[in-house]
C-alpha cells in the first residue's frame, strides 16, 4: 500500500523548465480559469449584452415613433447616439453585480482561503481578478455598445434622426459607453473585496449608481449644479453623451477621469484591506 502510494506521489510532474513559482502572469491565468468556469459569470454578461442592445433598441424605436410629439427644446437636445446607448444604464447594474460577486463570492464560499493559501502574497490575486474582469467586460460591452449603436441608428432612420459612426463624437461615445460600464464594474469588484459580503456590496453599488443621482435631483438646482456632475453615474454618463439633464456636464474625458478616481480610491482601499486583514 505504502509503496504504491509513494510511487503515485513522487513522479516527475514538474518539468524542470517550469519550476513551481507564483508569478503575476500565472495568477492571471488562474483567475481567467475561475472567471470562465462559473455559469453565473457567463449568464450575467449575457444579460448585460441583452439589456444594452434590447433597451437601446426600445428607446430608439420609441423616440422615432414619438418624435412628432417632441417639443422644440426636446428636438433641439435630442441625441441619437446616447439614445441608442440608453441600455448602458441598466446593463451597468448587471456588470456591477458581477463585479461584486467576483470578490464577495470568494468570501461567502470560503474559496478565498484556498486562493490566498496558493498565493500568500495576496495582492496578485486582486490585480489578476481586476485585470481579467476589466479586459473581458470591456470586450463584451464594446461589442454590445457597437451593436446598440447600429441597431438604434437603423431604427431612427425614418425621421432622418440617425447619425453614422463617423459623425463627430459617435465613435468616442460608443467606446466611452463600454469604458464607463467597465469602470463601474471595477468599482463593484472593489466593493466586493472591501465589504466581503454580496448583499452589502450590491446595495452599496446600487446606492452609488442608482439612488444618489435621483436624490440629488431633489435638491435646489443652485446647489446641485456644484456637484451633480461629479456623481459616479453622471461623471460616467458624460462618456457617452447621456448628460443632457445636467447644467454643468463634464467633458467626456474629465468625466472618465472623475469616475476612474473613484475606482482607484476604492481599489486602493480594497488592496489595503486584503493585504492587512485576516482572511
Amino acid at each position, binding site marked *: 500500500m505504502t509503496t504504491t502510494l509513494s510511487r503515485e506521489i513522487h513522479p516527475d510532474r514538474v518539468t524542470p523548465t517550469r519550476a513551481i513559482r507564483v508569478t503575476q502572469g500565472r495568477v492571471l491565468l488562474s483567475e481567467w480559469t475561475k472567471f470562465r468556469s462559473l455559469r453565473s459569470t457567463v449568464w450575467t454578461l449575457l444579460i448585460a449584452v441583452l439589456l444594452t442592445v434590447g433597451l437601446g433598441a426600445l428607446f430608439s424605436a420609441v423616440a422615432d415613433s414619438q418624435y412628432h410629439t417632441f417639443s422644440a427644446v426636446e428636438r433641439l437636445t435630442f441625441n441619437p447616439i446616447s439614445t441608442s446607448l440608453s441600455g448602458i444604464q441598466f446593463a451597468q447594474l448587471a456588470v456591477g453585480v458581477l463585479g461584486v460577486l467576483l470578490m464577495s463570492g470568494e468570501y461567502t464560499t470560503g474559496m478565498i*482561503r484556498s486562493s490566498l493559501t496558493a498565493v*500568500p502574497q495576496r495582492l496578485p490575486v486582486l490585480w489578476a481578478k481586476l485585470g481579467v474582469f476589466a479586459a473581458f467586460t470591456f470586450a463584451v460591452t464594446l461589442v454590445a455598445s457597437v451593436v446598440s449603436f447600429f441597431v438604434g441608428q437603423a431604427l431612427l432612420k425614418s425621421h432622418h434622426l440617425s447619425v453614422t459612426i463617423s459623425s463627430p463624437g459617435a465613435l468616442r461615445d460608443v467606446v466611452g459607453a463600454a469604458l464607463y460600464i467597465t469602470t463601474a464594474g471595477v468599482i463593484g469588484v472593489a466593493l466586493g473585496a472591501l465589504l466581503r459580503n454580496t448583499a452589502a456590496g450590491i446595495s452599496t453599488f446600487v446606492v452609488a449608481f442608482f439612488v444618489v443621482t435621483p436624490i440629488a435631483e431633489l435638491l435646489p438646482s443652485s446647489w446641485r449644479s456644484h456637484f451633480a456632475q461629479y456623481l459616479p453615474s453622471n461623471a460616467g454618463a458624460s462618456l457617452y453623451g447621456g448628460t443632457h439633464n445636467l447644467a454643468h456636464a463634464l467633458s467626456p474625458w474629465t468625466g472618465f477621469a472623475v469616475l476612474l478616481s473613484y475606482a482607484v480610491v476604492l481599489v486602493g482601499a480594497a488592496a489595503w484591506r486584503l493585504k492587512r486583514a485576516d482572511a
Partner: protein
Amino acid sequence: MIEVENLSKRYGDKLAVDNISFAVQPGIVTGFLGPNGAGKSTTMRIVAGLDEPTHGRVTVNGADYRKASAPMAELGILLEAKAIHPGRSARNHLLALAQTNGIGRARVDEVIDMVGLREVAGRRVGGFSLGMGQRLGVASALLGDPKVVVLDEPINGLDPEGVLWIRNLLKGLAAEGRTVFVSSHLMSEMAQTASRLVVVGRGRLIADTTVDEFIAQASGQSVTVRTPEALRLRDLLLGRDVTVTAQESDVLTVQGLTAEQIGIVAWQANLPLFELAPQHASLEDAFMELTHDSVEYHSSDLARDGVAA
C-alpha cells in the same frame, strides 16, 4: 518542518491561542489534538498565513510562508472550513489553484486520481458529499508536492474506507520525509496514525510528546476485579495511595496496586477471583484526564444551562 514560537492570537476579547510553542518535525506524522474550540484551526490558519498572529511567529521550512516564492511546494493545507466555490467543477477548482504556481494539468489529473475523484471531476462541487469534499481538499493540498502537509480534521465525513485511505496516505507522506501535521479531536484515530502529539486545550499547550509517553503520563492504570467477596476484598486492599471503587456489587476497580499484588492478597485471604484484569489507560482516557480542565464546555455545564433555560 513547522516552528511555532510563543504564538498568541486574539479575536476581539477572546484569546483563541495563548502563548504556545512547539515544532513539527519532518519524517513522522504529528497529531494535533484538542477539544473543539481549543485553538487548533486558528493555529493552522496562522501557519497558512491566513491570519496574523497577535504575538509570536510561525515559520514553515524556516521561513515566513507569506513570503514564499513557491508556496505550493512548501506547504499543502486542508482547512476544516470549506474553501471551495460550489459552482465550479472539481477539476477547474484544482486547475485554477495549480495555475497560480505554474503547476500543469497533468499534475491536476494525477491528484484527482490519487484521491479517487476521477469519475466526478467534471461535476460541480456544490453537489459533493462531505467525504468527496474532503478528498478534493486533500487533492488541493498535494498539488504542489509540498514538503509540509497540514490537514485540519481530514477524516471528518469520510467512510471507513476513506479513513483507512487517509491513514495510509499520511504514513506514506511521512515515510517520504515530509512534515505531516494532522489535527483531530478523535484520540483513537491519532493513536493509529501519529507518532508524536501536540495537545492543546483552551488555546494553551498541554503536551508535546510521543503517543506512548502521553499515555504513560496520564494518570494511574487501574485493575478490574470480579469476586463474590467484593466487600471483604475491598477492606483488605484499601490503604495508602490505593483507591477502590465498586461498579457493581461484585466488581471492583482498583487503582494503586498491580494485578499481581491484588491476586496475592486474595489468595492469602482465600477469596475466589472470577476476573482480574489490568486496564491500560487508552489515549482517550489520557486525553480526557489531561484536558479535563480545558474543555470549553463540559456536558454538565450544558445540562445545567439547559435546565436553567
